[in-house]
């Protein structure tokens, strides 16, 4: 697959990671990023790497109902609600999603600069191939930095884990797949933790949608 196409697919995944909100935000972001980075993983790490990335995204989606079920078993409704903004929410001209989109425009430029100026690779340094992971990673970092809820932090962590896993494949070295697989495994764990926290705060169906 050629590099511009890889960049375009990753851009779409990063955009989803920046704008996705509410109850299913973490699994949706994991799925989108896994789909967006799977072609890059296949290019740099081979077919198995792509399978593992997609598996991590699918595992995040599967872990959510299981963790939700486990959380409901406890039937405890105390503790922090991951969807409620922490602290008093500010009433600004632009909402949190608008701010994230504006930040996304900035990280697009930053990721382009990194891609063209920072070579990566422990054995053979390559340049110009880093945009997919740099952009998705920056979107995850942005999501964490602008977080208002625990779910925002969870989205950021999961996205960063998937992006760094693929970056580790691109970096190469001796047998990078186990370390990258370890990074990918963090995404379902984060999704499960987020779903478990959600399950302790049941909401009316209208609120729970999305």
């Amino acid at each position: 697959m050629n590099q511009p196409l890889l960049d375009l697919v990753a851009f779409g995944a990063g955009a989803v990671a920046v704008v996705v909100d509410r109850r299913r935000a973490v699994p949706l972001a994991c799925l989108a990023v896994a789909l967006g980075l799977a072609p890059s993983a296949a290019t740099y790490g081979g077919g198995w790497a792509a399978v593992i990335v997609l598996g991590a995204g699918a595992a995040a989606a599967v872990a959510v109902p299981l963790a939700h079920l486990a959380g409901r078993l406890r039937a405890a409704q105390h503790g922090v609600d991951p969807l409620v903004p922490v602290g008093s929410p500010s009433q600004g001209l632009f909402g949190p999603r608008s701010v994230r989109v504006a930040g996304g425009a900035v990280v697009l430029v930053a990721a382009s600069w990194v891609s063209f100026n920072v070579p990566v690779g422990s054995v053979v340094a390559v340049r110009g191939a880093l945009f997919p992971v740099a952009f998705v990673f920056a979107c995850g970092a942005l999501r964490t930095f602008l977080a208002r809820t625990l779910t925002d932090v969870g989205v950021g962590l999961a996205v960063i884990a998937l992006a760094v896993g693929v970056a580790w494949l691109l970096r190469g070295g001796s047998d990078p797949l186990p370390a990258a697989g370890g990074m990918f495994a963090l995404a379902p764990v984060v999704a499960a933790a987020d779903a478990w926290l959600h399950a302790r705060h049941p909401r009316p169906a209208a609120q729970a949608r999305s």
Partner: protein
Amino acid sequence: MNAAWLAAAWLAVGVVGGLAGARARRPVALVVPLLLVVLSLLATRGGLRPDQLAGGRLSLPREAAGLLSAGAAALWLCLLLAERLDGLEVVTMGAIGAAVVLLLSTGSPLLFAVATMLAVAALSLRWISAAPTRATLAAGRVAGVGAAALVAASVLLPATSPDAQPGLVGGLLAVGVLALAAVVPLGGWAAGSLAELRAPEIAVWLLLIAPAILLSAFSIPADLPLLASLAFQHTILACGLIGALWAGLQSLRTGRSTRYGRLALGDLSLIAAGIGTGEPVALGGGLLLILTHLVAAPLLLQPARPGLGPPRRLVWLAVSGLPPSPSFWGRFLVLEACVAFSDAVAAACLVAGGLLTLAAVLAVAHEETGEGAPAAHRRIAAAWALAAVALAVGLLPMGAVHLVFGGTA
């Protein structure tokens, strides 16, 4: 016992603490940290710190084992002195401790960064759950971005060629270390949380995560190419000095409840500045300051109570920076490193140290007696024991450092 098993032991202790019922909560909290002290000492391997960025297997050096065992002992004292426990203290301690064991013992840059990220995730979840405010959310935001910066740097290493943007790598590492030690943004995320959280919740960051990150940071410049090393050291030196000056000013302005926290942030900033000088003597100063706060924090993070006044004053003197307090020797060694670096840096270090000393002396002079019922006898005994240890560390500073961190420190 190797480092992986020790990490598993910390995690298992957290799980046991989580499963304990309400009646068993306090006994479990007062027993398991002592178990961790013993296990950390059993996992000791002699020798130097692993190079966190240079690769290699898990190996827990004497310094790291000393930090872990002293940290576990300090956390035990925190739990002993706390008035109430909600049962999640041991869970948090176990999860964060396991991550800290990994970050102290690993030779893989990726595992180092991921362990940091896991520690920050556990800390953020605990802090936000305990006190959901903007200040505690900042722990997840700022420290999370710091951990992300370390992860990004791990991918870009080794950055040996000049066109590999070694400055960017050094900058990312510096941002990660400074954010996790709350030196940037000027102590903001940790300082804001000090007023919101109880002592056991603050202690897991102040006594485990921050010292572990700073101890690891001492070995980072040696593993970097020259340009990256210079970027790392200069950034951390400048931010450390600015952070120390700001913490000194704020510790004079702030109320009694957060004064100790500000002072501790100032000392963490001074340790960061010491790392930035690249002088070997800074390591001794840093270890002494870490040891000082391992002794002082369990008592000074607690609210004042009748019966604890005299030992609290003694411990305040231990962190004052007046000779022969342990913090005096620690700041003196950091100052020595700054003098070796440049006169301007030394002047800034001296001013910051002076401000911190003034704040501590004012705290001693205006120490309140506290409200409510007098503290229990066992708490008073623990407080006096801490004061005695602080005095002993001040009288035999390097002996104490060698006892806790080993002879190579």
